[in-house]
């Protein structure tokens, strides 16, 4: 943390922008962040190569089994984007978000840098917002890394062309790309709930590792709960429940019902856990 140099007396709006820029720079220069992004970029490569080897470039892959959209990948490389997002969304993406969000406050506290951050006249609320904004940015960057890597691999290994939607309608490649972009946006927004949850956990402890482990553990627990049929009354309120609804963007016409529920649920989690994080962080004693 190298920002304790010439801190002005009063916080100005531009100053918090600077804080944000600084925070983003620090976060995305970390080896850990880069390693996470590399893992995310690697998943589409693995999936693409596996499909290529399995099918030998001819015929559909394994008649409907496997992750969503995988049978379409050999026809159109763009579908590797959808497949990769469907593969990474349940675990890889939220796990990396959990690592980043869990570390956001607790990691600073653990390294003893939190109080220096607060010595600068940023204010705790502002610092928390900056941390959350950085995590959100990572949601977007992580999703885009998966999508772009998948698009590259898909373009290299498979033909590109007109896109067949789930309803059997064919749209142009340009519209397919637009829909892929929209899907990436929805996936990134789907992760904001877990980001807020991770940030809240991060304000509870001074150990970055503990916060990360708790967040990822919570994520796994909730994912398991989401598969137990006896809990079906509870499941619509679990944050991963509507995650795969991004596929509804590939219907014709688009089926908005679940998408709206998903985004509403993420907004709710963001507000509840964001304000909980704020309540905790602005009232606790910073000792490290």
């Amino acid at each position: 943390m190298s920002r304790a140099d010439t801190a002005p007396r009063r916080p100005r709006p531009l100053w918090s922008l600077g804080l944000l820029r600084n925070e983003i720079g620090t976060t995305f220069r970390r080896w850990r962040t880069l390693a996470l992004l590399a893992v995310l970029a690697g998943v589409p490569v693995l999936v693409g190569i596996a499909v290529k080897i399995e099918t030998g470039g001819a015929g559909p892959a394994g008649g409907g089994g496997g992750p969503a959209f995988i049978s379409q990948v050999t026809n159109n490389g763009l579908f590797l984007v959808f497949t990769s997002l469907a593969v990474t969304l349940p675990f890889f993406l939220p796990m990396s978000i959990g690592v980043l969000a869990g570390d956001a406050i607790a990691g600073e506290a653990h390294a003893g840098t939190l109080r220096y951050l607060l010595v600068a006249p940023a204010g705790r609320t502002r610092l928390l917002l900056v941390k959350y904004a950085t995590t959100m940015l990572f949601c977007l960057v992580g999703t885009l890394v998966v999508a772009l890597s998948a698009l590259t691999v898909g373009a290299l290994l498979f033909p590109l062309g007109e896109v067949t939607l789930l309803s059997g309608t064919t749209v142009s490649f340009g519209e397919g790309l637009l829909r892929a972009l929209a899907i990436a946006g929805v996936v990134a927004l789907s992760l904001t709930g877990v980001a807020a949850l991770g940030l809240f956990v991060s304000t509870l402890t001074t150990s970055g590792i503990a916060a990360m482990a708790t967040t990822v553990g919570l994520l796994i627990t909730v994912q398991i709960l989401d598969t137990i049929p006896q809990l079906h009354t509870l499941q619509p309120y679990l944050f991963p429940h509507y995650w795969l609804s991004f596929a509804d963007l590939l219907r014709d016409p688009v089926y908005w019902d679940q998408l709206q529920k998903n985004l509403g649920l993420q907004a709710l989690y963001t507000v509840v856990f964001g304000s909980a994080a704020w309540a905790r962080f602005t009232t606790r004693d910073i000792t490290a």
Partner: protein
Amino acid sequence: MSRNEPAEVIGDGGEGRSSKRRKAVRYAVPVAVAGVAAATIGLVPAFAGSGSPDLPKISAEELIAKIAKSDTQQLSGTVRITTDLGLPSLPGGIGAGGFGGEQGKGGGEQGKDGASAAPQSKLMELASGAHTLRVAVDGPDKQRLSIVDKAAEYSIVHNGGEVWAYDSGSNTALHSKAPQGERGHQGGAPQGLPKGLEQATPQDLAKEALKAAGDTTSVTVDGTAKIAGRDAYQLVIKPKQSASTVGSIRISVDAANGVPLKFTLTPKSGGAAAIDAGFTTVDFAKPEAHTFAFTPPKGAQVVDGDKERAKAHKEVKPGQDLKDFKGLGGLTVSGKGWTSIATIKGAGSGLPSAGAKGADAKGAAGDAGKFLDSLGDKVTGSFGSGRVFSTRLVNALMTDDGTVYVGAVDKQALVDAANAAK
């Protein structure tokens, strides 16, 4: 904004108390947000559901006539179907896989993938769990029905003489010719393609239910409801015969145009509805023409449904029996109205797999017998002995000689039927 706030207020008692109060106030924010959200989620559907619109009184006959003369030809909407027949849940893979294997055996280049686009396997899926369907209708010649699955969709498009079924999961399209002679009554018995799925729409379910009415049935109008944002009358149909397992059937009919919007079948045993199919959104405007246009996507495997069916006709039948008992040969129906009992003669024909198991179980008190015992209750009567298999709606009695009695009736009625047949 003061910085590093709490550390500064550990001073004297007064400030400590105010810091505590501030802490409580701040923690109240997330709690309040969560509470408001929970209240909204809990109460808004309750208010939306309980709204009984004020509509002029109407008799049951008038309401049925309203349904009958309803000439709504165009609609589009989303249907939610929840089925709880008390059957073990049937994941799609099992149904499709089973058919795939059989058809593959039957030979042919396209056995395996052809089956996954066949409507029968999709029908099986609808028999349990909750499903979302999108329907669009424009007259008797143009219909579209899509089963919305997780990251997959199964669509049936009927446009003039063409019927297409497309399964996105396996990227397979099934093509059939609609029978030209049977326009309007599209999807007749030999065709069979959209028929089963069409029955899932509230209209057809309602028609079926009304057909079953007669002196065996009481039909009343019971209040009003709001379904998919539209005012609706509620028609309640109750069997008068006490042996029936059907408690009541409730059909919500659009007050403006007589279109049935919701169909709920509650078993006599109570609990959740066995079948609940209703529009969640509905629009009576003419659907856009391109909705009914279907060209097989590039790269999709296209299966000729007519040929495929001719080839697989016999093999598909054993699967259908779970859903459609009338599809079987060697079947007689006794009783009338709600207490009709279908009798399927065993002895090697009729139910190949289950019948054979029943015969085995008679002789060998081995594993198969024990397994069957765990599934069904043993009953005896003057007909001999047999086992009763129960679901929430349908009970089946399989006698030891392999004859099966099936009906939406209680156990005693089945035993009586078996005794009468002796």
